[in-house]
């Protein structure tokens, strides 16, 4: 995945056929959903925050569902994700849509990490080497590559 051009504020990305497929797989994996979200507040003695917590949590879940669904729809839309020669794709997104795709892919990465038990690798925590965990590790690595490309594209003019 790389940025081909910025055209009138829109970003045009080149995706190989493999990248297009893997992005869709990533988003499909993310559809299983993250299991946990941070609370609105960690304080236990704030009635105002407590009153808003339930609606807030529902709003976050809905937000992640929406970003993932939108990103999936863009990748399927033949007017937005145009198939070129050799099976590669040209995906056109506004900067705002690129942010949405970034959120959806990062959520897939965080979801994979949570499925591993939220380990802190930097602190030396290790995971069991089994096929399920391996899939999650690969998902994280794959998502990390796409996140890196999207960040580069968004900051290319910095």
């Amino acid at each position: 995945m790389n940025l081909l051009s910025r055209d009138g504020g829109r970003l045009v990305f080149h995706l190989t056929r493999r990248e297009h497929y893997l992005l869709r797989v990533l988003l499909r994996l993310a559809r299983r959903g993250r299991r946990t979200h941070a609370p609105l507040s960690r304080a236990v003695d704030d009635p105002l925050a407590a009153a808003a917590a339930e609606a807030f949590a529902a709003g976050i879940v809905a937000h992640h569902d929406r970003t993932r669904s939108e990103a999936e729809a863009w990748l399927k839309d033949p007017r937005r994700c145009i198939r070129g020669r050799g099976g590669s794709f040209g995906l056109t997104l506004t900067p705002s849509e690129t942010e949405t795709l970034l959120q959806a892919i990062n959520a897939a990465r965080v979801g994979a990490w949570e499925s591993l038990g939220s380990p802190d690798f930097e602190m030396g925590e290790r995971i069991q080497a089994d096929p399920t965990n391996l899939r999650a590790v690969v998902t994280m690595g794959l998502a990390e590559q796409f996140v890196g490309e999207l960040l580069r594209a968004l900051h290319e003019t910095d």
Partner: protein
Amino acid sequence: MPTTVEPPTVPAPVVTPGESTRTTRDPGYLVVCWNDPVNLMPYVTHVFQTVFGWDRRKAERHMLEVHNQGRSVLVRESLEEAQVHVHKLQGYSLQATLERDDA
């Protein structure tokens, strides 16, 4: 020719018993971002830039504060504004919360 101008009479402030001058800020809410072992440092910097409109230097300073100290207070706002910002940050999967600031 210069003339002498009488200064206007300024009424003395009316002090109502029981009222006092406010010496503390309005109660507000702090938007706090917590460290997590999963989100990438450039990603967190980007999110701060995007959500708060900060330049890269300020965003990186807060990102490093999160990374090195475990948390960073990002802004202080009303409850409603703080909720909006926490929602945006959590939309990016950051560990953001709000806490009341009575100081």
